[in-house]
């Protein structure tokens, strides 16, 4: 860090450090889940190199865990890739939803940012960028910290799987659900949003129980957001 940014950071409390602090709840959740992925990938016969590589270049928790299951049941590579595509398609909605907040960004920075867009980083960014321009370094610090913890968790799972006991007693498996709850509440500023969230939750639950386990999030989100627009027109509520 050069002197210029040192001066700025003393006034602004170091944006990259703030980004790292903001990522703490994600880190708490990613280390144990990354750990579980590392252990399971080893058991499925995936080499340490490939296991780490997946966390570095795919970086998508649920898709990675699903892929490990598919590898161990001997599915063809193409089916694994297609499944990954379907499971990760929901990120299109998240990427689109962040675009109004990143109007001033150039394409190369957007391309790097998109690489580390996960459910959790999306949830955090959607909340922290809502109505505020955030320093780019803070935004990237959130992403890099989150992915570093995912890769670290993976490495711990590969190399320490047998040595470290259960994580359940520490409730680290509740860090991510609790963070989602907090971010959901922080997203909501008006009545239409409450209705949209409740509808999305109920649609999603219904679709999931009906067995649409690949598509439930995407369909529920599209339906609920569309109803939100209709509802806003109806109630002529001032813009949110």
């Amino acid at each position, binding site marked *: 860090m050069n002197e210029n940014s040192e001066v700025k950071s003393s006034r602004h409390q170091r944006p990259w450090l703030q980004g790292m602090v903001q990522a703490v*709840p994600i880190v708490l959740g990613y280390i144990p889940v990354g750990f579980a992925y590392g252990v399971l990938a080893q058991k499925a*016969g995936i080499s340490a190199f*490939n296991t780490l590589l*997946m966390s570095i*270049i*795919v*970086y998508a928790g649920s898709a990675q865990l699903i*892929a490990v299951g598919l590898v161990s049941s001997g599915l063809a*590579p193409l089916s694994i*890739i*297609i499944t*990954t*595509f379907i499971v990760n*398609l*929901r*990120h*299109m909605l*998240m*990427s*689109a*939803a962040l*675009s*109004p907040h990143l*109007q001033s960004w150039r*394409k190369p920075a*957007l*391309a790097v940012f*998109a*690489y580390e*867009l996960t459910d959790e980083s*999306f949830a955090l960014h959607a*909340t922290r960028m809502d109505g505020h321009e955030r320093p780019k370094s803070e935004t990237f610090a959130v992403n890099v910290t989150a992915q570093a913890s995912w890769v670290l968790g993976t490495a711990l799972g590969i190399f320490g799987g047998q040595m470290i006991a259960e994580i359940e007693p*520490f*409730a680290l*498996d*509740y*860090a991510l659900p*609790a*963070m989602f*709850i*907090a*971010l*959901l*509440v*922080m*997203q909501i500023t008006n009545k239409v*949003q409450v209705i*949209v*969230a409740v509808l*999305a*939750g*109920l649609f*999603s*639950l219904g679709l*999931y*129980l009906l067995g649409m386990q690949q598509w439930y*999030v995407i369909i*529920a989100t599209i339906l609920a*957001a569309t109803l939100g*627009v209709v509802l806003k027109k109806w109630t002529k509520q001032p813009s949110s």
Partner: protein
Amino acid sequence: MDQTTILLTILGMAAVTYLPRVIPLLALTGRRLPEVVIDWLGYVPPAVLAAMLLPSLVVSDGQSAINAENLFFWAALPTFAAAILTRNLFVPVLVGMAVVIVGRLLMV
């Protein structure tokens, strides 16, 4: 499956994961969007969060599981309360984790 095939599979997974993450950002950013589209995109964050969250709290093994043993569901209630009261990220996370820890100690 040999490690080379797995490596190639991972490269394919990386491509199909990255494209949906990057295309909308590149296509939509820097463009004037109609107000109705901006509104729609504004409803996506609460909708997608709720859509991911609710099944994770009330479903286990493909069955709805609002019962005494479902600690994730019960811990969600004080977590929501903490989130509404504080509008902060860390307090609800700590409350939720604390409730799960205590719940697990009591259930043993």
